[in-house]
């Protein structure tokens, strides 16, 4: 099991050596059992760091902010930033490297192996506990979680409240890192795409009714794309106005922005937005589950991306974020890619 002290020790030492500008990690939310992202600049702040099953965030998202910040600064501090990553998160770094969005030297990767565990899913937790009473959730021994409430400590099998993506995960160890904490543990709690079965086995109309109901809820707060480490475009093609304008952009160019998706949260636009997003994440989504977690209206967004991940894997033998040197899913092909559906 990864020891919090090891994480703190590593963070202290790289801050001491001045190797990194700051470290993005996890700390406790003062009023809540959940963690929140922590931006650690000073050595003494490392004591705030935590590592527990509430460390759901994919902190790779914040590399984009750092890049933007650096672009705005006249004489930026070019040292890398440290980031604590789980297995899934580390693959996001690989995708960003593959797409040349970041350079390897821009980031110091502190890999933390999930080993036999993972992070919680609040929805599952709520079914078992009154959230208000929870004080703390910790990793226990033997793949258990220890939950502290007002009444004391309860041990619960991790699988009961583990996020579905963690149950289906087969990349529980970071694939890219400067330092790896914890051990590489092979584990398989479930088949990788098992949760999709319930969506694939139903009839076309049932599928439609399900997704229509879900996507009609969307309020287009764009939390899904805002939290996504892959959604780093300055201007999303779902935006109805052109963001990437410069003083010399002509009116004609601005007018040529295509409105693939209107801002109105109506069914057709919601579908357009989410379908385009799923297609844009095909071969890039690393299933960190953040989009689904942050959705305020509980749209099961992860399944759209998971479906693309499945087809990439089963039809094209491609898994996102394993090798930054290889071409992306859609910028590559094999002569014998399946084509049964083509007339």
């Amino acid at each position, binding site marked *: 099991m990864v020891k919090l002290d090891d994480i703190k020790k590593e963070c202290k030492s790289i801050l001491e050596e001045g190797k990194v500008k700051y470290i993005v990690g996890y700390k406790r939310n003062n009023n809540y059992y959940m963690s929140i992202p922590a931006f650690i600049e000073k050595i003494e702040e490392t004591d705030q760091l935590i590592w527990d099953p509430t460390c759901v965030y994919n902190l790779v998202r914040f590399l984009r902010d750092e890049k933007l910040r650096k672009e705005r600064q006249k004489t930026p501090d070019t040292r890398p930033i440290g980031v604590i990553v789980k297995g899934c998160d580390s693959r996001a770094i690989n995708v960003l490297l593959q797409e040349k969005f970041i350079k390897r030297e821009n980031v110091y990767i502190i890999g933390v192996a999930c080993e036999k565990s993972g992070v919680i899913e609040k929805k599952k937790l709520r079914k078992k506990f009154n959230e208000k009473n929870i004080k703390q959730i910790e990793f226990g021994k033997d793949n258990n979680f220890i939950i502290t409430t007002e009444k004391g400590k309860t041990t619960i099998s991790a699988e009961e409240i583990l996020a579905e993506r963690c149950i289906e995960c087969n990349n529980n160890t970071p694939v890219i890192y400067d330092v790896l904490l914890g051990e590489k543990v092979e584990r398989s709690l479930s088949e990788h795409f098992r949760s999709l079965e319930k969506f694939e086995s139903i009839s076309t109309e049932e599928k439609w009714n399900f997704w229509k109901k879900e996507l009609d809820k969307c309020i287009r*707060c764009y939390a899904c794309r805002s939290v996504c480490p892959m959604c780093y475009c300055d201007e999303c093609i779902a935006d109805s106005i052109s963001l990437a304008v410069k003083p010399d952009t002509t009116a004609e160019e601005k007018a040529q922005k295509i409105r693939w998706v209107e801002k109105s949260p109506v069914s057709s636009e919601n579908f357009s937005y989410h379908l385009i997003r799923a297609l844009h994440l095909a071969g890039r989504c690393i299933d960190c589950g953040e989009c689904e977690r942050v959705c305020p209206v509980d749209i099961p967004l992860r399944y759209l991306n998971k479906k693309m991940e499945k087809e990439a894997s089963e039809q094209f033998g491609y898994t996102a974020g394993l090798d930054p040197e290889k071409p992306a899913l859609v910028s590559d092909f094999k002569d014998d890619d399946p084509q049964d559906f083509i007339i």
Partner: protein
Amino acid sequence: MQMILSKMNFSSWLKKLNSYRIFAPVKSGEVWSYELVEKPENIILDYPNTIIPPKKVLFPQREVLLEFESSSEQEIKLKEVIPEETPSVIFGIRSCDASGLAKLEKIFKGGFEDLYFSKRKNQTILVGLACNIPPSPDCFCTSVGGSPYSKDGLDILMTDMGDEYYVESVTEEGEKLIESAIGLFNDPEENVKKELEKIHLESEKKIKRYIKDIDKISSKLPEIFETEFWDKESLSCILCGICTYSCPVCHCFDINDEVICTFPLKGKRVRTWDNCQFPDFTMHSSGHNPRPDKASRLRQRIMHKFNYFNENCMELLCTGCGRCISKCPVGIDIVEVLEKVRVYEK
């Protein structure tokens, strides 16, 4: 008018209101939201709070302002679209959200009257439900001039008394609504009134979150405008729209022409919610963005709520509903941010 309504009679009251469109919290999955209710007897008022406040009924996320069509290049036909005239009742509004609607009324009806908002507002009766237990651990209405049983903005306030509701009319419209089914109501006895007071007082005590010295904070905000305070506080912000879309008083909007067909031109001018956290919100046509980063956007949200609006309207643009705290994907806590403002030293 103060009356007692047995819970058994609640649905009968609603049935009597068949000339109104009725909106009430509806649960879908784990998410509650205000929806048009077809069968009023299905309404359950025992709910925490909705994700999206009832502002969406009066100020819908999408509003068609006008339709345009052009069959030739010389001529463009415009058709104004005005909200329908259908009286509505919104049931189960929490006091915080009701005071939010009152604030929105100041914005949309004070000075310049927004026809779309006011048309809807004028024909909508707001029936509130006092919070005996705070719907969220993040509630802080008492810190921003509200209370769990505030009547501000309401036409009627209901309080859950166990087997019955204590129903108080606040306005004439509210009174009429009770009178339309007066047979279902009883006069309250004195001990019930005392019981009500007790419930109200206790509910106030159950609110855990508190902002100290809110007035000082409000006036301190301009002093720290140009500090790195905002950089630090906004580090984890991802610039989504949850905090503002779920806010009962955030009211910024965007106007777009939704073109259905370019040639011949046909489309609608549409108003949709917009959001000061989105990068395109303040984007100028030149490419210049006066709020270029997260820090300036978080600052704007706080400044607008706790300083600008206060300066202009002598009240805060926050009702303490706690939604932005509960729903923030990265745990940004407005109460904590304000506390940090309070203790911040340059």
